[in-house]
């Protein structure tokens, strides 16, 4: 009532509040833009330099590459692929990563199904142990496994080695063991949340657990499996430590990208155009996978499942 009778009295405070809100909005935009710049500039700087010739990189800042004469080319990429062994390392990274993603997820799926839909004594206790293993530092496992591997000598068909250290198989097995706790944890939380009736009616219809697992549980768990695929892919592709320990010194020919690039940082020093090209080649695949499957990744980490 009073507001209608005295319009002037309420317009004044409303203008101030709109003004201060406007100021607040400018602050928010400025804050977000500055933060985005902090996140982008380091990457853009190296990306620009990866296209510039060596003498330009050494004599002037990367921002000069954004103005004419641009003088940009793909020469550095060609150089690192052939001369610095990044091409081979890329193939090695693929060799290491793909089995290291498939094996743990399948093994974990069996275990997760048993934890979700079969009852057995000690089920909860065993699962709590898996949760505990989630955060075990890999460092505490290296030495005994190195010793174990060094005693394994196989000469049979394509398998031909005196020690497992240095072989791809060594990293596949290790990554399977290291990736399992999280894979079991995530898959069990997801499978355990599937509707009970589905499995009950399948059992009534005479479906064996194997059929229920392959035809129902696995297809229904695709979102969780997709999340896991990205996690494990990024973890293995980006891993330096496990590769250094089990491949590193023993067999340089099997080095993945992370080891090769870390070595180039030492040997190439200030040749940022080459280091940049190598780094961006190593980033291309994970960024593509990540961009394609990001929503599954986000669902995986926000579903209360956080890897240590």
């Amino acid at each position, binding site marked *: 009532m009073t507001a209608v009778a005295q319009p002037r009295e309420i317009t004044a405070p409303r203008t101030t509040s709109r003004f201060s809100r406007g100021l607040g909005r400018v602050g928010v935009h400025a804050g977000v833009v500055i933060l985005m710049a902090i996140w982008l500039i380091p990457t853009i700087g190296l990306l620009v330099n990866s296209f510039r010739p060596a003498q330009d990189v050494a004599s002037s*800042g990367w921002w000069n590459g954004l103005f004419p004469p641009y003088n940009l080319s793909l020469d550095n990429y060609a150089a690192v692929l052939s001369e610095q062994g990044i091409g081979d390392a890329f193939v090695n990274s693929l*060799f290491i990563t793909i089995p290291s993603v498939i094996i743990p997820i399948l093994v974990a799926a069996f275990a997760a199904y048993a934890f979700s839909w079969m009852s057995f004594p000690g089920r909860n206790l065993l699962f709590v142990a898996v949760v505990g293993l989630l955060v075990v530092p890999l460092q505490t496992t290296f030495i005994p496994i190195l010793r174990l591997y060094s005693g394994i000598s196989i000469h049979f068909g394509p398998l031909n080695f005196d020690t497992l250290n240095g072989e791809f198989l060594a990293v596949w097995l290790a990554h399977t063991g290291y990736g399992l706790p999280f894979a079991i944890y995530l898959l069990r939380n997801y499978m355990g949340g599937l509707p009970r009736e589905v499995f009950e009616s399948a059992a009534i219809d005479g479906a064996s657990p194997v059929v229920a697992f392959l035809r129902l549980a696995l297809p229904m768990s695709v979102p969780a499996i997709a999340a896991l695929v990205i996690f494990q892919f990024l973890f293995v592709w980006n891993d330096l430590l496990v590769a250094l320990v089990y491949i590193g010194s023993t067999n340089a020919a099997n080095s993945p990208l992370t080891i090769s690039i870390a070595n180039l940082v030492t040997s190439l020093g200030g040749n940022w155009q080459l280091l940049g090209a190598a780094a961006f080649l190593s980033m291309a695949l994970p960024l593509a996978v990540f961009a394609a499957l990001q929503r599954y990744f986000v669902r995986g980490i926000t579903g209360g499942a956080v890897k240590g």
Partner: protein
Amino acid sequence: MDPRIGTALTVLIGVPAVLIGYIYLTEIALRALPERYKPRARPWLWLLPALAFLFVFLIYPTIGTFIRSFRNADDTDFIGLNNFQKFVSSDATLIALRNNILWVIFLTVFCVGIGLLIAVLVDRVRYESWAKGVIFLPPAISAVAASVIWKFMFDYQPPGEPQTGTMNAFIGVFGISPVPWLQIDTFALNTFALIGVMAWMWTGFAMVIISASLKSISAELLEAARVDGANEWQVFRRIVFPLLLPTIAVVSTTMIITALKAFDIVYTMTGGNFNTDVIANLMYKQISFGDFGFASAIAVVLLIAIVPIMGVNIRRFQAQEAIR
């Protein structure tokens, strides 16, 4: 043809075939059992591959490392607590320990603090998904690649030379002489530079989790508070922040573990030189030196630091299960 392609195909098709074949085989094997034993035996057959891997690659080696930490470099004799004595009496390990404490405190504070700030800020702009996408990209790249990106940011040339490193060029605009960021250990400046790189990598991770939790807060609740006269800061302080606390706790434990295990960035950017070493890198160096006893002792120290977090995780898991 590269002989490795044959291996690759064998593995790609063979491994899943073997594993799925295993599950079918268990069902065939179970037929031999009397009906009432089947449900009892089946879960263990399904768990067997996972339990075998967990035992061989996590449980057995952890026990082995614990035992080796009391043994000498060649693993021939028990030497009591000598390795741990060496740990607390050598300057190198004490500096690494100090650095890890800095890592734990500041990485967690940076990632959670800035992650929270960004989550709250981008919630108010229309280009939210773009901003989040940019800040969430670094978790996809390797710490090695991030190290190359940032080593270039910190690049240093002697005064007088053209400064091509972004940081030194930037401060040069204001007439400040170039700083060798990664070599100055006064106030652990170089360690903070490394922590900053890791924070650049993982803030997006913290932000995405906090942001998801932020979205789940009901808009009516916040509107009700505003109608009752609360200003934006009070809404954040009294309603949003308390509701985010459980999420912040989860993210913080993850960041603490990440900080304790920090390795790649230190290995690639400084190699642990200039007093930037951390426990994980120290342990790796001892493995390459071949002192397995001392390396084991360092790993045990790391494990002891992580055990409380294991306890927290298990308790949180049991609380979640109780309300499931």
